[in-house]
């Protein structure tokens, strides 16, 4: 089971700024281990950010996104106290969903 995400959701003017860190190896599938065997690719493929039942960002990622991914963006319409939900799914089917409150 993957570690929780670290989410910051902050109201800046009339926008909500989201900053999120995810705990993930983001293994490229190009590296080899000490024995010379290829380490299989293992990476987050889909990320969705939702606020009040609406998707405010949807992303598809390849293995070129850096390990322990960081993502930041802004959307309009959030209010202090609202919940923001972020979910990811990786290429093994592992999932993680976390929630943060807009501050």
């Amino acid at each position, binding site marked *: 089971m993957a570690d929780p995400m670290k989410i910051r959701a902050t109201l800046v003017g009339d926008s909500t700024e989201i900053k999120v860190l995810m705990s993930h190896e983001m293994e490229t599938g190009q590296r080899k281990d000490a024995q010379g065997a290829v380490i299989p690719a293992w990476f987050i493929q889909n990320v*969705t950010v939702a606020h009040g039942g609406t998707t405010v*960002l949807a992303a598809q*990622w390849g293995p070129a996104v850096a390990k322990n991914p960081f*993502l930041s*963006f802004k959307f309009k*319409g959030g209010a202090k106290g609202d919940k923001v939900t972020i979910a990811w799914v990786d*290429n093994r089917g592992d999932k993680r969903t976390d929630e943060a409150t807009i501050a």
Partner: protein
Amino acid sequence: MNRRRRQVLKSGSGVTLLALIAAAGWLKPGDASAQSWNKAAFDTKSMADTMKALGGGEPVQSKDIIFFQTPDIAENGAVVPVGITSNIPKTESIAVLIEKNPNMLAAVFDIPPGTEPSISTRVKMGQSSNIYALVKADGKYFVAAKDVKVTLGGCGG
């Protein structure tokens, strides 16, 4: 201008941006919550296959796509900050492409109405290369490039 554009379009790794247009074209508005992943797009290596699949025209170079927090030099290619803002009206998606990576496409962000067309993330770069920001806006494609050098770090051990 024409020559510069040709340079942008013809990448050194044998993959052209045109190939990636096809890659970036799948995300239709309203499709955002679907847990789909465009394998063909992320696997793009040769242009021959993808050229055929091309629906849209050539991307237009745009000064309205701005890189921010993207360094000229990355001390370590394992983590390269990339920020992209599109000032093009009706921006629908922003894709990050790294010319000299084994697979060019790194990430695509679908931007629903109400979300600012500006994202910041971090990518891996195998070597010094152009980073392309490919924006789809009102059904058309626009592109901007930034050259990022990856240096050696530390003492080689």
